[in-house]
């Protein structure tokens, strides 16, 4: 069930996903999701208490596209970049061509002036569809360990 090829396919998807964000290729970001996807950034505190509202929610790829458009065209924030570290990717379950995977992540934020700080840690809880040329996220839950966000959250995690 947890074959090596699947493990590496999932790890590669995650590697491509974080590169897309860290190298500021946000326009490609929605393309990592299925059209009918679910993406949410939520603090563990809310997630464990079954409270629905977190920091960002989308239930369509179009909403992710709107996020990118807003960041590029509408929202104002001091220039910044992320650096993701992802580790300990675990395949938890598999149904047909959909795999459930969990990974630990850490995001460091680097401001334009060089100020660098640990920005967020947590885990990805992903539903990944393996059919098709490249694997896609049908669901991506970004469960942050802390409810705190330093200053603001603009780019996706």
């Amino acid at each position, binding site marked *: 069930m947890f074959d090596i090829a699947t493990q590496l396919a999932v790890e590669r998807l995650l590697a491509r996903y974080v590169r897309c964000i860290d190298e500021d290729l946000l326009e490609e970001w929605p393309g990592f999701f299925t059209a009918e996807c679910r993406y949410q*950034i*939520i*603090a563990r*505190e*809310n997630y464990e208490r079954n*409270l*629905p*509202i*977190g*920091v*960002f*929610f*989308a*239930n*369509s790829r*179009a*909403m992710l*596209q*709107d996020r990118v*458009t*807003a960041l590029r*065209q*509408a*929202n*104002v*924030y*001091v220039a910044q970049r992320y650096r993701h570290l992802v580790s300990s990717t675990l395949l938890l379950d598999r149904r047909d061509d959909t795999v459930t995977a969990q990974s630990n992540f850490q995001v460091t934020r680097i401001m334009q002036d060089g100020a660098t700080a640990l920005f967020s840690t947590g885990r990805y809880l992903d539903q990944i569809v393996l059919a098709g040329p490249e694997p896609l996220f049908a669901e991506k839950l970004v469960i942050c360990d802390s*409810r*705190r*966000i*330093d*200053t*603001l*959250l*603009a780019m996706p995690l």
Partner: protein
Amino acid sequence: MRDLNLAWPIEGVTRVPYELYAREDVYAEERRRIFMGATWSFLCLEAEIAAPGDYRATFVGDVPVIVARDLDGTLSAFENRCAHRGALICHKDRGNGARISCVYHSWTYDLRGNLTAVPFQHGVNGKGGMPEDFRREDHKRRSLRVESLAGIVFGTFAAETPPLATYLGPEIAARVKRVLPRPIKVLGTSSQILPNNWKLYIENVKDPYHASLLHTFFTTFRVNRLSARGGIVIDDSGGHHVSFSMMATDRASADYDQADIRSRQEGFRLADPSILAGRDEFGDGITLQILSIFPSFIVQQIQNCLCVRQVVPRGIAETELIWTYYGFADDDAEIASMRLKQSNLVGPGGYVSMEDGAVGSLVQRGIVGAGRDSEVIEMGGREFKSQETRATESPLRGFWSAYRTHMRL
């Protein structure tokens, strides 16, 4: 009492000295005169301590406080500092029980802050223990007067603070009740650490002027205009305010189109407009209501996204902003989904709020070397009064007027 030796500019509330954001002694005085003074602070939502015996650790300014619902249902609050040697009595975020014990030596309190048990008070095997004349009653925790309005629990340390209704005035109270007409439930919490003085965030909240200029989401996607109908309400003290508008009733405006630079981009449309689908749940067409209560509490309605914001100072240049989203106990699935999607508009990463997290730090960084320089707050005139326009900074002048009164500046 320390003298701040701070001369307010003769222009009055249209000038605010930048040193108010950078001085440790000012910060300490604010704790004493404002947060522990004759003001009402948000403690929690009743929904968070719904059951008898529920309690929460919260803050009044940066002072740790416990707020609780006693077994008989009455609300109470007292300082979260042990009578013995000063440890936080409650180091947990929340709990339930008839008693709270400090972990250090298990001194135990009831939910009114009465000291009910002192281990080994009478010694062990006849040795040690507290002196004969030690009375637990002498060590009751300093309690706060508590009042609840429409499910929001407020507390004050000062005896001289007027009743909450008097403090708020009828208009503000009515606007609070408007968005809390029936039992609520908490839908989520998040917080922001703002690298700036707490008053810079309060200024931002009370500032209708920046809305369409800083937040261009609505204009970029052609949803809103500053010229939407609405207005500003300010109470007599100046400390509280309401800013509201009706998005539907948008009209073009020459002044507007000339004015704004950044929000004039055109041609963008939401790929998924479902985020804007809303309901006129209060039946008055008001789609946005921002309400602030002096010194540091905000109630907000943006369409169907409802939340309260608690502002917790963490030092002269750090502030925690805590967002608590709520809905109503009887929410149906459709409105639940609307609240969830519209929550993307606000919070630490909200489409029309994320900028607010940054501007405070731009000011905090901008005032280095400002010396005795001060802000210029003249948009909409030089007094503070309710107005029909959002092209005003009237609520800021109101805030600074109330601030000066409490700080005796």
